[in-house]
């Protein structure tokens, strides 16, 4: 468990440390370093158990089904990285205490720094590739937030976005790669994966797996062609640059290659992909570093170059090269972190990082200068410093690389060339900054030494450079050995860590690099002139333009597809439906089934013809709104007739009353609309639409025809048999509505209730101008409620209500029921509104229709719930027969209460809808409901 604790500690710290922000920068720095210290103490006892390449594995399940476990692994490689992360972490925390200004949000800074530390520890200590992936992505996100710590600066925001886009994208590639490894090996646990190297390399998916993993590693470790994000990440505060973007996070990709070395390395693909990428990166980074005037820019490109170097070493594929790679990771981390910190101090004390302005600082800050110069010398590879030793190893390995033919000269040549550049830019760092005349109009003048404690982290790291450089075997030997053995998965080749290996070819290369580099620096002006002839590529601009390009592309695609036209959307919809069904439909063909077709009788044929004619008429006449409405009502009436013909009187009745209400509703709406629709379509679109309509219609016809001519059996037999004995009614349709499928009815009356409510609320917000005249320009009649109509409709009301009661009561056994009765009542009441006006009617209807609707839905629902009281499921009905004098025997059924609910809902909803529409015309009731964002 303690390894999990090591990872968790910084996360806990990230939550706790900001609480100390109020207590000052020193307090929060101390609080923030506690997790690192505790973690170091936790790791220390493991040291002995790791000798000989052993690993400690601790395992807790997290999401075992997908192979994700909280499985941690401590071996030499992990330990090496963990120590780097923790030790440099502590130094950075101390350094940042002085770097950050008082008014800055130190709580956020330390919190993010610790989050990063935890995530990074997670990467190196994971024994599970998925877990590693989790932490991997986390470092990308935290790095994003840290780069943009000064988010008021646009460059910082852009740099952060770019870094996230590149590393995040790489993370996705890594995810795919990890998934493929899991698929090949069957597990994400490292011990399984590492042991299955041969299996992975032999698998058909190996090349793509390798490529994906490497894209992950290369993006994170800023390898060509993904290297450009790193220099732009330098917008971060310097402690972040030193920690994330030189010492640790950018090494995550390197770590990944080291970690998976036994599983993936040793093939031609590995060799070519990794070593060439490394070589190119090494050269490009070193070359560009020469020409950067920005102190951090120089260091960033140098970092890119050194990362390339390490990658190249891993790519070489020999065991010695791998040892050298691991060694250089440590060396680079120490000298580069100290250089960044020194650069931060200089920036802090002079107010600028431009090397054309900062000159001659030796005089002002000799202490810092000494430290920086030692570190820079190490970067250049000066003997007696750690950079020298690993560089010699690198040269030696470059010579060993057996490429065919003339290519054999390439690696040593590249190595030497990169060495020359490295010496040149290191020389520039030293000479330009600390010597080379006087400072030129510095924002802060004169510069002086930073606070004492700000230098301590630099001193410690520089001391490490010296110690490793002079006593390599003693200082770093044991750690390197276990790390190397963990990387290689066992055997470590013979190597000696010594300050010098006598006079040999690598030393000669070093010598060449030194003399070449110094010559180059002395002739720098020529190189600058040469370099300036080429237009420098601003990667950020390129990146932004790519982003813009993607944005524009998507805008074009989107606008093409989503142009705001409803007709277009409907067209796409029909085309889709047509396209996907076309193939199965053609397969089906004109398959008419075995049923015999019934003979055509004239009334039916006539009805069908009228139906078709009315439907076509509705479409053709659709610009004359009233006319097409009348034609539409013909369609509705004919459907009712058809129902009646095919022995469905209930449906016919319902259809009839629905038709009436619908037409009234539509007429009410038409009142506000112009009488004619303007022509907005071209002939082409009309004919296109005719084609689509035909296609859709023919398709439906074919399917229906195929269907109706096939033998059919259904569940309806059951309903016929059980209607009377089970449901207590002889009208099967009604029993289905209120009993067998009463639940549907409950839903449908809810729909009705919602529709009415919707119309009501919509009308409350609608401001419509009622036309002052009719369409011919005549004023409306002064007497809107003709006496005749009034006189006839009033006595009709009780009659109509009686009819509806009758229809309601007989519904269970004969055509009728709550729905139809409700509609009849509604029509009767509506006619009062029409005849006598809204005001007159409203005075006589005290209950708001909302309440009626609510009551209806509630009664229907509660009838259903009632059956639970008797231990039966929802909506179970019950009936009995009772007899009263005079009336005789009659039936009592819970279904009738349900039907009452239906009745009330229908009445309430219909009237609510129609009166809401009708009331619009009455100016006094117009609500000027502006959009009042009032809230509670």
């Amino acid at each position, binding site marked *: 468990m303690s390894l999990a604790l090591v990872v968790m500690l910084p996360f806990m710290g990230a939550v706790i440390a900001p609480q100390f922000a109020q207590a000052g920068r020193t307090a929060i720095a101390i609080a923030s370093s506690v997790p690192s210290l505790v973690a170091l103490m936790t790791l220390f006892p493991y040291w002995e158990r790791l000798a000989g390449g052993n690993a400690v594995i601790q395992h807790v399940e*997290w*999401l075992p*089904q*997908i192979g994700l476990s909280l499985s941690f692994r401590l071996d030499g490689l992990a330990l090496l990285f963990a120590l780097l992360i923790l030790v440099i972490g502590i130094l950075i925390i101390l350094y940042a205490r002085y770097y950050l200004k008082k008014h800055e949000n130190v709580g956020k800074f330390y919190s993010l720094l610790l989050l990063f530390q935890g995530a990074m520890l997670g990467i190196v200590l994971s024994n599970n590739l998925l877990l590693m*992936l989790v932490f991997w992505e986390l470092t990308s996100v935290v790095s994003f937030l840290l780069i943009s710590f000064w988010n*008021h600066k646009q460059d910082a925001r852009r740099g952060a*976005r770019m870094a*996230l*886009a590149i590393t*995040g994208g790489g993370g996705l590639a890594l995810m*795919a790669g990890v*998934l493929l490894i899991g*698929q090949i090996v069957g597990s994400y646990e490292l011990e399984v994966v590492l042991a299955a190297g041969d299996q992975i390399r032999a698998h058909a998916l190996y090349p793509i797996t390798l490529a994906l993993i490497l894209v992950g590693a290369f993006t994170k470790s800023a390898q060509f062609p993904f290297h450009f994000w790193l220099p732009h990440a330098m917008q971060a505060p310097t402690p972040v640059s030193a920690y994330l973007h030189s010492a640790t996070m950018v090494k995550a990709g390197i770590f990944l290659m080291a970690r998976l070395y036994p599983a993936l390395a040793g093939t031609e693909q590995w060799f070519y992909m990794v070593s060439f990428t490394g070589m190119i990166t090494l050269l490009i980074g070193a070359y560009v570093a020469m020409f950067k005037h920005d102190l951090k820019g120089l260091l960033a490109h140098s970092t890119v170059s050194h990362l390339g170097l390490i990658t190249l070493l891993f790519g070489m594929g020999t065991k010695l090269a791998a040892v050298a790679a691991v060694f250089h990771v440590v060396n680079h981390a120490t000298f580069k972190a100290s250089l960044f910190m020194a650069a931060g101090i200089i920036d802090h004390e002079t107010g600028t990082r431009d090397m054309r302005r900062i000159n001659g600082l030796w005089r002002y800050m000799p202490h810092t200068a000494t430290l920086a110069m030692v570190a820079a010398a190490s970067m250049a590879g000066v003997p007696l410093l750690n950079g020298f030793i690993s560089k010699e190893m690198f040269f030696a390995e470059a010579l060993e690389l057996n490429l065919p033919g003339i290519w054999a000269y390439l690696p040593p040549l590249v190595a030497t060339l990169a060495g020359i550049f490295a010496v040149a830019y290191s020389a520039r760092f030293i000479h330009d900054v600390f010597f080379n005349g006087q400072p030129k109009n510095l924002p802060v003048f004169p510069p002086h030494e930073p606070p004492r404690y700000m230098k301590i982290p630099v001193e410690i790291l520089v001391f490490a450079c010296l110690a490793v450089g002079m006593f390599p075997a003693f200082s770093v030997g044991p750690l390197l050995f276990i790390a190397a053995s963990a990387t290689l998965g066992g055997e470590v080749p013979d190597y000696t860590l010594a300050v010098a290996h006598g006079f040999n070819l690598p030393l000669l290369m070093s010598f060449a690099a030194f003399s070449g580099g110094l010559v180059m620096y002395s002739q720098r002006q020529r190189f600058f002139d040469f370099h300036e002839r080429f237009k420098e590529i601003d990667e950020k601009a390129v990146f932004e333009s790519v982003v813009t390009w*993607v*944005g524009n592309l*998507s*805008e074009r695609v989107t606008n093409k*597809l*989503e142009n705001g036209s409803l007709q*277009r*959307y409907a067209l*796409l*919809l029909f085309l*889709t*439906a047509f396209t*996907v069904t076309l193939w199965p439909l053609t397969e*089906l063909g004109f398959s008419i089934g075995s049923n015999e077709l019934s003979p055509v009788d004239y009334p039916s044929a006539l009805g069908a013809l009228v139906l078709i004619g009315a439907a076509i008429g509705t479409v053709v006449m659709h610009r004359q709104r009233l006319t097409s409405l009348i034609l539409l009502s013909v369609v509705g009436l004919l459907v009712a007739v058809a129902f009646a013909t095919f022995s469905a009187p209930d449906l016919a009745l319902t259809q009839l009353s629905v038709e009436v209400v619908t037409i009234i509703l539509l007429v009410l709406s038409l009142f506000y609309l112009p009488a004619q629709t303007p022509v907005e379509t071209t002939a082409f679109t009309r004919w296109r639409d005719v084609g689509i309509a035909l296609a859709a219609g023919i398709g439906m016809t074919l*399917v*229906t025809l195929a*269907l109706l001519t*096939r033998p059919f059996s259904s*569940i309806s037999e*059951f309903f016929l048999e*059980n209607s009377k004995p*089970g449901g207590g009614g002889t009208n099967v349709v009604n029993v289905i509505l209120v*009993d*067998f499928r*009463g*639940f*549907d009815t409950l839903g*449908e009356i*809810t*729909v009705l*209730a919602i*529709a009415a409510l*919707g119309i*009501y609320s*919509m009308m409350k917000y609608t401001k419509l101008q009622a036309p002052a005249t009719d369409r011919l320009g005549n004023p409306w009649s002064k007497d809107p409620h003709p006496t005749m109509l009034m006189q006839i409709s009033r006595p009709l009301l009780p009659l109509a209500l009686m009819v509806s009661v009758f229809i309601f009561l007989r519904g269970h056994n004969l055509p009728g029921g709550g729905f139809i009765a409700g509609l009849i009542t509604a029509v009767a009441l509506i006619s009062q509104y029409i005849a006598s006006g809204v005001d007159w009617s409203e005075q006589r209807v005290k209950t708001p229709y909302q*309440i009626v609707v*609510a*009551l209806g839905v*509630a009664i229907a*629902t509660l009838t259903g719930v009632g059956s*639970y009281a008797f*231990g039966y*499921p929802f909506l179970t009905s019950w009936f009995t027969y009772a007899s009263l004098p005079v009336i005789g025997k009659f039936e009592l059924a819970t279904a009738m209460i349900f039907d009452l609910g239906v009745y009330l809902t229908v009445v309430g909803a219909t009237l609510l809808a129609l009166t809401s529409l009708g009331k619009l015309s009455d100016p006094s009731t117009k609500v000027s409901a502006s*959009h009042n964002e*009032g*809230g*509670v």
Partner: protein
Amino acid sequence: MKLEVVLPILIPLTAGALSLALWRSVRLQRLLGVLATGLLLAAGIWLMRSTVEQGFLVVEMGSWPAPYSIVFVSDVLSAIMVLLTGIIGLAIAIYSLASTPTGHEKFGYYPLMHLLLAGVAGAFLTGDIFNLFVWFEVMLLASFALLTLGGERAQMEGAIKYVTLNLFSSALFLSAVGLLYGMVGTLNMADIAQKVNSLEDPGMITVVSLMFMISFGIKAAAFPLFFWLPASYHTPQVAVSALFAGLLTKVGVYALYRVFTLMFTQDIGYTHNILLWAAALTMLTGVLGAAAQFEFRRILSFHIVSQIGYMLLGLALLSPLALVGGVFYIMHHIIVKTNLFLVSGITYRLMGSYELKDLGGFYRQRPYLAILFLIPALSLAGIPPLSGFFAKFIVVRASLESSEYLIAAIALVVGLLTLYSMIKIWAEVFWKQVPDHVTDGGGLNSGLQPRHTLAYYAPVIGLATCTLIIGLYGQPIYSLAEMAAHQLMNPQLYIDAVLGGQAK
């Protein structure tokens, strides 16, 4: 008794009727809103517990035996969806206390909200294809009414597209039900599933199944049927947007999951291949659409579309793992998406705009809101260890295991573009300073009214917590998805539960 199967409908239905009856008292309606959605959540939990225990819960309405009655069936997928409905319902009800304009409250906001929830829950639970249509209609009308509530011009324009295209869906659905009934003579889904396999012409079934696919595809906002969504979701007041964003399209997805695992698996080579390409194109067009937007809610709306693609992908691959991924994705998405809309509502309330160019300064002035945005936003983009990472991971893994490499690549690239989109919002709304043309720092300096703060933040915090829990403690969630997938992969279990042994 299995009351828990019916309660998720009864509670919102009764609450809807009651709210309507309490027409004149907005206060009581508000109280009822929180109370009833709270009860709905409780019922969802109850249902989940019983379903996990028993596998399937079947209620035959009116005590008539299946397949003659309408049945309510709760399997693990249904229970998951109902539980999520409860969670989102409660979050929205609380949020509405602060965010809903008084006028909306007076003119039926709460009854409509309850009835919408009833429709959603009904669709998740019913085992009857016609009954499913009924609940779809309840949903459609309730959502349409909510969409138009307020009567702004933009709302009307969006609502017309919404309702027209959705009515196409309904018409197609109803025709398909009719045709299907004509073939198998039954409406009970288990019964249909049993009978379609013994039909003589499977070609007919394929045609009908495609009609269902188009109809539900419209509801689910799949490519190229999604246009109603970005046309309308950004127009109503934000609680409504959030409610829709979380639940509505997922009902379509659910329906696809239901019918294309239970009923229509006879021509997988054709139907599910269509789904596969629809999934890929939905992912892509959605995310590209989002990249072209600069309005907070429009961006989010397009991402709904994009993510529907991932869910469809799970169904299209039709492997156990893929279904786990799909179900996991649905769970993750509902919570995250609702939450993002809720956050957009807070920024709107503070600065009075959804346009990115009018927003800014939140990182500095509202750091906690920034965190509350980052959690769902990064989760949406699939950053570990948040819920979206696992959802995406499982789906991608399933595609790789089915050797659909191109689809897996698309899914990953879409993930990156989603991240880009979220970062766009982050950069504009949170990083950027308050824009110069905004006077007095918008409302940022004054802030929310104290009595609104809790109602605004509590749902956001709650949903963010859910996201974190799904991510960090995913095992129970995964197990649920696994159980759901197992049931979906074995439709016979469903058929037996509904028809075999006449489970009482």
